[in-house]
């Protein structure tokens, strides 16, 4: 599950704040994003960027590979559909198993975040 996501920061981002997605969380972010509605690849990337207020920028290569992996795991379904601009795009949607996986990953994440928070407080 823990996949290295960020594949070399671009020149641009090196001068700016770190926008890499936290290791191992890309799957969860994709699943969460899709839990609201089916979306295509760019839509998902854009949504993550917007909702995180630009904190996270998704690497397209990682994203597209993640789709393949999640599809193989049975958590995503895909279908080619017309977009609102009447172009064909591959839309991803969450399967029942994907929903379950999202719950698991969210719970897992919360557990870790609160643990880290506790640790940081303790250090302070």
């Amino acid at each position, binding site marked *: 599950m823990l996949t290295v996501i960020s*594949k070399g920061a*671009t020149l*641009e981002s090196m001068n700016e704040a770190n926008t890499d997605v936290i290791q191992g969380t890309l799957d969860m972010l994709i699943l969460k994003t899709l839990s609201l509605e089916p979306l*295509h*690849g*760019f*839509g998902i*990337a*854009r949504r993550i960027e917007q909702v995180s207020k630009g904190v996270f920028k998704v690497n*397209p*290569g990682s994203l*597209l*590979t993640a789709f*393949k*992996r999640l*599809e*193989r*795991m*049975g958590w995503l379904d895909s279908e080619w559909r017309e977009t609102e*601009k009447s*172009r*064909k*795009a*591959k839309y991803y949607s969450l399967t029942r*198993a994907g929903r379950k996986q999202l719950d698991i990953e969210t719970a897992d994440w919360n557990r870790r975040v609160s643990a880290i928070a506790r640790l940081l407080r303790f250090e302070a």
Partner: protein
Amino acid sequence: MSLWRQFSGGLQALVKRQTADQEITDEISHYLDEATAAFVARGLSPDAARRAARKELGNVTSLRQEVRGYGWENRIETFLADLRHAARWLLANRGFTAVSLIVLALGIGATTAIFSIVEGVLLKPLPYPHSEQLVSLRHTAPGVGIPDLNMSTSVYLTYREEGRVFQNVALSTGGSWAVTGLGEPEKVPGRVVSHDFLDTLRIQPELGRQFTAADENPDGERTVMLTDGFWRSKFGGDRAALGRHIVLDGTPWTIVGVLPPSFEFMDRKISLLVPFRFRRADVTVLGFCCDGIARLKPGVTLAQANADAARVLPLATEKFPMNPGWSPTTFQDARIAPRLQLLKDFLIGDLGKTLWVLMATMSIVMLIACANVANLLLVRMDERQHELAVRAALGATAGRIVRSLLLESVLLGLLGGALGLALAWIALRILSASTLMNLPRMHEISIDPAVMAFAFVLSMLAGLLFGLIPALKYARPRTAAGLRSEGRSLTAGRERQRARDFLVAAQVSLAMILLVGAGLMIRTFHALRHVDPGFSGAARLETMQVGIPDTVQGTEQIVRMEEAILRKLEAIPGVSSAAAISALPLNHDQNDPIYAEDHPERKGEIPPARRFKHVSPGYFAAVGSRLIAGRDFSWDDNYSRIHAGIVSENLARELWGNPAAAIGRRIRLNPKDSWYEVIGVVADLHDDGVDRNAPTMVYWPLLQRNADGHEDVVRGLYYIVRTPRAGSEALVRDLQTAVTSVNAKLPVADVNTLQSIYDKSLARSSVTLMLLAIAGGMALLLGIVGIYGVISYSVSLRTREIGIRMALGGSLEKVTRLFVREGVAMCGIGLIGGFTGALLLTGLMKSLLFGVNSADPLTYAVAAAGLMVAALVGSYLPARRATKVDPVEALRAE
């Protein structure tokens, strides 16, 4: 679920690769469009937006590769691509591929053929249920000097009734019967068995019933079981044969059952089984007539079985009376003890050692083949430096290059393995067609799945082995050096040369081991050939067995009929002499102790057993056995029941110091017996094989009377005629006519020349010799090829150096010597390794050697000299080419 999706998704992508690729391309281009649109929305110009989007996405091709690279199916694709590449490379280098394939096919074929024999003979279980429980009830009697003894009826009954470790015990012995009334009279082989014989083997009859205790009653009906083959050939597979009579030795027997087609026992030819017919009241302690087998209870070990057998064995003397004339303590005095063995081990005997030596031999051939191919590959690799450097420069990782190089060599290995398997199949066909090898369980040897798996694993391993050396050596990217197109002329050759030198030295070492092995076998064979077996001109001696049927009664009548047969045989044109013996030379016979008058035995001691054979007058002259002192028997001696014997030279020396002194001494068979006079002494006979010591022997006349007036005769004598026509079909017909002219119901069996019996006794040595010689020859040849290859490559690499040397005035001779010295040095290093290896390994074949020490200096010297000469030839030929180099050309060359 997810595993299934992984699999089916991957499979779909694999099958519909193009669709899958198109989808990825479409998705990426859509992503790019959307990103562009987003930048436009932020106010960038379409062109600038496009550029920005491209920048965000990075290199589209590598992105596509990255996305495409996910999933197991890509591994397969890469693999298939590498495989295609490997196949193309092998096809492009046809010369190399052909040579490597031939070398590998020979190595793998030879190893696989021997393995299939090892598997069929040594590894496979015997064809009975739970055959690991079956033991052969062998004994030993050190008190009378008999190391391996079979079993008596009394011991059989004792084990049966008193043993605690056996599920079943059975007794059997070979026999043959004249079958009449079913076409030509014929002598057929079979076994006399106790009623529980088939139960012990867990074999059910195909038809009818098996024997019961009632069949053993000598007053009951005579019953017989037929084997499937005999039943089909004589009764055409007719079920009505059950209950019918068959005439054996003139007496009708009732057929009660037919054995299944798969039935076999200890590789014997068997057409029928008849029950032992005996009265328990008549059973005496002695009479070691038969082979015993038993089935152990589950979980009982051989050691436990032997312990239990040792416990119950002495009970035999309490349960049964001693034979008349023998001391009641004979059994104890002979120190008879059990020596139970697994039935399979008994069947195989000491063949295992021979087979493992052959297996080791072929493994060495295999290693040499691998070293050879590795060497060829190394040379090829040098030429591929450029290609590999280009691949590395294009981004292939070292791992990927190693993988693709290994794939090439494994592919080569597997192709060689397939050819080798075909070779092994042919070799086995030839081997099983020739009677030379005469192996037990020969018919169980075949190319079965186990053998195929062996060949497969062997080829894989070989491919990895010879591929790994060059792959590891060259996969390290040496881009800069490699890309320089004239990499060859650099003097970096030394280091690369070292791997090849090492491989050649290793080949020489292994070849040395094989040559020493072959040399030792040649010396062994030579020594065996020079042992005087105790007969001469065996190629002109035709032998056959004729059984006098039960219808002829009276000992004198039987012997007179035997004399009549001999007279007829003598009259055959071209026959110079004819004689008869109870068991042919090299075919053993019974062993019994003799008591010499002037060697009074101590109390509680039995003199050693001697081999007994009964011979007709004129036997020694006919087979060319020297009469050293005294005289031969005459027909008058026979009919007058002379109390006399002829002893072998070694027995005469043992008892009386010299042959002449033996004449007139008296011997007897037991302390109550009457005396027999020694009337002659003959040369020793190597009856147990020429590689064994000649047993001490006593020859008796055909007609003999014991102290109690009982007369002994042999009904199934072997007849020997000396004639230059031996081995011809015409002679066999003449022999048959001569025999039937005495009595039309006399069957002739086992027609053979004594030479073929002698050859068979040497078969194991000759086959081992042949295979070792072939292996040694191959090793020598491959060694020469290896040295030749390395030296000629070294010459081609150093053309420029040679040019310089010659230009500076170096003589042709000096340059040649330079390269020859290199080859000789490699060979020298190899010989040191070979000496050590040979000393270690040939110790293992000690049991196969005769008349030669496994560290025989002559053999070692000749093998080393042979290899040295080979090295000289192998390096001189290419070195001479170096001297043909024109200095001007060489210097300009690069």
